[in-house]
């Protein structure tokens, strides 16, 4: 039952609170987050599990998943604040691959393809392409030279293709020559995945 802890930007303690308070508090807390940041909501009211998903869906925030802590019945919900810039599909990095093409490339590749996942750690923890390297967009600048090879082909993914577009531009400017943006990102990915959700038997976000 040991789950590696999932990094979030802020933690909200709603333990012992009954509905509607977990959602009321989450709504208030998320207002002070920067778009794209992740909140961890700790709740003991089981009703919060379905409600927080419905609420997130309606408000446009991105429900990442929930982990259950040991025997104490504590639920940790992870939500990423909606980023308005992500809604616009205004991509500027020219070298793109679709998720389906990437899947085919992976299947045909003799050596392992480098897939770089630039989403937040919590998003990665719940679901990612097997073998993908996790470097959140906000940390890419500091980590790229140490962790990535500028001569290798790199396929960059995020949720929808927008953060990866920015990441591709950053990498390209830094001299990485074979970088591809995977347009539609994880939302278009139909191949195998790893992570907490995969372990739970492929349970979907919205059952």
């Amino acid at each position, binding site marked *: 039952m040991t789950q590696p802890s999932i990094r979030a930007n802020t933690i909200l303690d709603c333990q012992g609170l*009954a*509905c*509607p*308070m977990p*959602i*009321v508090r989450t*709504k208030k807390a998320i207002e002070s987050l920067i778009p794209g940041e992740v909140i961890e909501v700790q709740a003991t009211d*089981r*009703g919060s599990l*379905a*409600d927080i998903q*419905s*609420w997130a869906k*309606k408000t446009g925030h991105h429900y990442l998943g929930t982990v259950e802590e040991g025997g104490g019945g504590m639920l940790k919900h992870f939500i990423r604040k909606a980023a308005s810039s992500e809604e616009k599909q205004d991509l500027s990095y020219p070298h793109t691959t679709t998720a389906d093409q990437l899947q085919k490339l992976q299947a045909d590749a003799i050596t392992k393809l480098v897939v770089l996942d630039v989403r937040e750690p919590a998003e990665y923890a719940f679901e990612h392409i097997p073998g993908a390297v996790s470097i959140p967009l906000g940390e890419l600048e500091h980590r790229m030279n140490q962790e990535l090879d500028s001569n290798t082909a790199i396929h960059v993914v995020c949720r929808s293709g927008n953060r990866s577009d920015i990441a591709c531009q950053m990498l390209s400017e830094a001299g990485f020559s074979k970088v591809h943006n995977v347009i539609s990102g994880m939302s278009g990915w139909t191949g195998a995945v790893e992570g907490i959700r995969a372990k739970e038997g492929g349970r979907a976000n919205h059952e």
Partner: protein
Amino acid sequence: MNDFTNQQIQAYKPMTPAELASIVMNKQELYILDVRNEEDYSDWRIEGHGITSANLPYFDLLDGVEPALELLPEQGDVLVVCAKEGSSIFVAERLAESGRSSITYLQGGMKAWSEHLEPVHIGKLQDGGDLYQFVRLGKGCLSYMVLSGGEAAVIDSLRMTVVYKQFAFSRGARITHTIDTHLHADHISGGRALAEETGATYYLPSKDADEVVFAYSPLEHRSELRVGSTDLAIQPIYSPGHTIGSTSLIIDGQYLISGDILFVESIGRPDLAGKSGYWAGHLRTTLYDTYAALPKKLIVLPAHFSKYTELGEGGKVAAKLGDLFESNPGLHFTDEDTFRKAVTEQLPPQPNDYERIRQVNMGKETLTQDEQRDMEIGPNRCAIHDN
């Protein structure tokens, strides 16, 4: 703040599950604003002849109740409902603050509603006996109490055993028998607990008890049970199909307790233990041979109902066996193949947590009250037409 100059803050009050039950059973009118999430609402909600309901999740009303005010009728009673009551109080308070009068909320929410039992008098038995049906409106479960000569038998008892104990006490009766017509899969049986608490004998069909880990008395075909000092008999009739042990009871030659074999508007499903193919044949024999040979004047009293339209006069769920052979679609599958298809294909989803509920009823798993409550949330779904 000026909003309040011409808008008076109204009071809002709790409504108990018993008050709501009386409205539903007497077919009175009520507007229900259900503030649970859409999935829960579409899965299971309060229904009745006079009930109008709408769903607007509380988390859509955090910025203001205007969307609700637009939806509600201009006047008349409104009951706000949620899972436990917290969110309905939250919404009711804001509706009252906005000036809407006649606002109530359901005390204890759907959890309490799911546990409420409403006793209905079914009829008199010989020598001053009485038969009562306990209607669990929130889940569609029906249990029964036979009262005679200071003794009581409880049939298909639910886990809210205190209700039966209080009722028997108020009638000056001692509970001597608790009987389960079959091993239930949709709710946790109270039969064994009630027997332990009252010193009664717990009866269960032995063919359903293969795996049970506690002592019980077998409910045997034609081995009569007697309640009270009179000749009042409970006659078990072996009637497999919903489960392999399912046993019906003829009470006082007047009533047929049909368990989950025959309902008012449907018939039982044979698939809740994963043996639908095997049990479909038994179900057909029970309905089309065994039941067909019983006196048509018997009043059928099932263990469940699925739609509020099955609630008859005063809220009771009952029908003459002869009438059901006319009107019940489950008794009109002419050939065996059509019948088999109807009871094995395109069945409604299974009851929530049905496999674990069976484990609990076999005594293999012990749960806290809260866990039991959570596990039973949702409709019973024991009939083939529960879609």
